[in-house]
């Protein structure tokens, strides 16, 4: 709740500073990505076995310097639709995992003295993650629903440099949820019982002991022109233990996509010669 209030205050401050800051232009750095890789799924509500298979995801990312202090603060919005398909060790059962993740974060950034092009970021992020695992071979317990809202830490190291004459933006960003809330049925509880109305013991406070997630993102934007080619790697690990149910989702994916910066022109259609363009990453 405290974080929520801080966020509201910051948005209100944005409105107050807007009129003072007309000569500052803040381009939006956006990226559309496709991810392909491997997945390792476990959910002891569905099966005691570990499944392995493929991972696919579509992603969108938007970063922009914040209006109230564009030199120092950057916001980031990401959305990912992820589909994992995995087989049991005997390869005779398939588990599907479909999830949607929305994340909003805000980071303070610093330039590193003596290292041209290097910026360090640190801040927080809040994440909403919903989805479900489906194991068709199970009768009354074929689905394990997932829902989590977390608040955590994030940071990034961004390094802009050139390979020959090609500008490159290299970024490493981990996201580590610290607390929040997530859904878990009871150990042997059927969703039929939840359907009948028993809502006890379904929502749980998240902490490192019962909800651990670390999302490591490494990207390289090859700035070919007005549009960039994004290549990268994502290693995402999620492990939960609640109500004697252990779930685990580990994915390693390669990323390919396009990224670029877009600037909204003022109503006049002209940019003032005094305007200062402050990028979020490039």
């Amino acid at each position, binding site marked *: 709740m405290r974080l929520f209030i801080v966020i509201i205050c910051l948005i209100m401050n944005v409105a107050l500073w807007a009129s003072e800051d007309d000569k500052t232009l803040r381009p939006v750095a956006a990226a559309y990505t496709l991810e392909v890789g491997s997945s390792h799924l476990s959910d002891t509500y569905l099966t005691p076995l570990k499944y392995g298979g493929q991972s696919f995801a579509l992603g969108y990312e938007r970063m922009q310097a914040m209006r109230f202090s564009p030199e120092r603060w950057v916001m980031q919005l990401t959305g990912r639709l992820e589909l994992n398909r995995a087989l049991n060790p*005997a390869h005779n059962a398939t588990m599907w995992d479909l999830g949607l993740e929305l994340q909003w974060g805000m980071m303070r950034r610093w330039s590193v003295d003596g290292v041209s092009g290097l910026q360090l970021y640190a801040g927080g992020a809040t994440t909403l993650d919903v989805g479900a695992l489906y194991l068709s*071979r*199970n009768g009354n317990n074929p689905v394990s629903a997932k829902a989590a809202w977390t608040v955590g830490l994030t940071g990034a190291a961004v390094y802009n440099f050139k390979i020959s004459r090609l500008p490159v933006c290299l970024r490493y960003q981990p996201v580590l949820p610290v607390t929040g809330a997530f859904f878990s049925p*009871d150990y042997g509880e*059927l969703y039929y019982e939840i359907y009948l109305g028993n809502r006890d013991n379904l929502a749980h406070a998240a902490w490192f002991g019962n909800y651990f997630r670390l999302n490591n993102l490494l990207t390289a934007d090859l700035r070919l022109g007005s549009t960039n080619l994004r290549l990268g790697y994502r290693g995402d690990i999620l492990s939960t233990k609640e109500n004697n149910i252990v779930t685990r989702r580990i994915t390693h994916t390669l990323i390919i996509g396009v990224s670029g910066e877009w600037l909204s022109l003022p109503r006049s259609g002209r940019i003032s010669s005094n305007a200062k363009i402050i990028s979020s990453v490039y």
Partner: protein
Amino acid sequence: MFVLPSCHEIEEWDQDIEGNFNALWKVVDEHYCFFDEKGVDWNEVYSRYHARLSSDMRGLEFFNLCAQMLDELQDGHVNLSSSFKTSYYRKWWSDYPQNYDERLVEQYYLRFDYSTVGGIDYAVLRDNVGYIRYPSFSYPVGHSAMDAILSQFALCKGIIIDIRNNGGGDMTNVEVITSHFINRRILAGSISHKTGPGHNDFSEPYPYYFDPVGEERVRWIKPVVVLVNRSTFSAANNFVSVMQYLPNVRIVGATTGGGSGMPFSSEIPCGWGVRMSACPVYDAQGKTTEKGIDPSENCAVDLDPVLALSGIDTMLDFAVGKILSDDF
């Protein structure tokens, strides 16, 4: 280095005979819900069957040993499934009279002339008694279908719901059908679940209720006989557990087959599926019905196999007589 220790542990088993046997035993040990009611010492079962293991067992031989171990649970909801065989414990009904002959009803009572909607067969029998036959709760039933059926019986003195040989299916169909036979909200029963791997780790039973259908639909408040046999099982048994407490309902026939534990599925490393009772469902008085539900007082009746040869279903005749009697 920071990531790996943060993963929560998941037990793993070897892919060999020993590993699969241990996995099967443990999956059942942690999720099965009727050890006490069945009087099964699962540790003793492990010792007895583990002693019969050998590393050179072939697939079918190992499967049969595992199936025999699961049969110790005496539970019709327990199965082991492989690509070549599915185990099934049958003694819960095979040791009892079948008390049902479908051809007998079709030929001598329905005369092959009946209507069907949504998996329910229905007709008006002699003496103006309505007859519903519902072979499986797996067949979806809608309120509109129930309205249509009960409207056909508007002039009948009562109806018979024949669920002999109904082996269960979808529990939500129990609610759909029952909601046409009540005039107010009723306590239908309660359900519990395992809260952990221990044999006594159960949640407090959660009561659940059924509401009557809206007044725009058809409610039946005249006499109802639910006709049952030992093969009335699982969701069908649950239907009986709810209907038995309604004032205008009598349960006629033989003790039902039980099966009051809602099944949970799991698997073992070799890919065989396991299904077992995991969530006990109790009736409105908090009683277990796992071992079956007795007929209403003075309503126990069997099918006479000799008279059946003459085209007489003594159970169905008893049910008709019960509806027509003054002391229903």
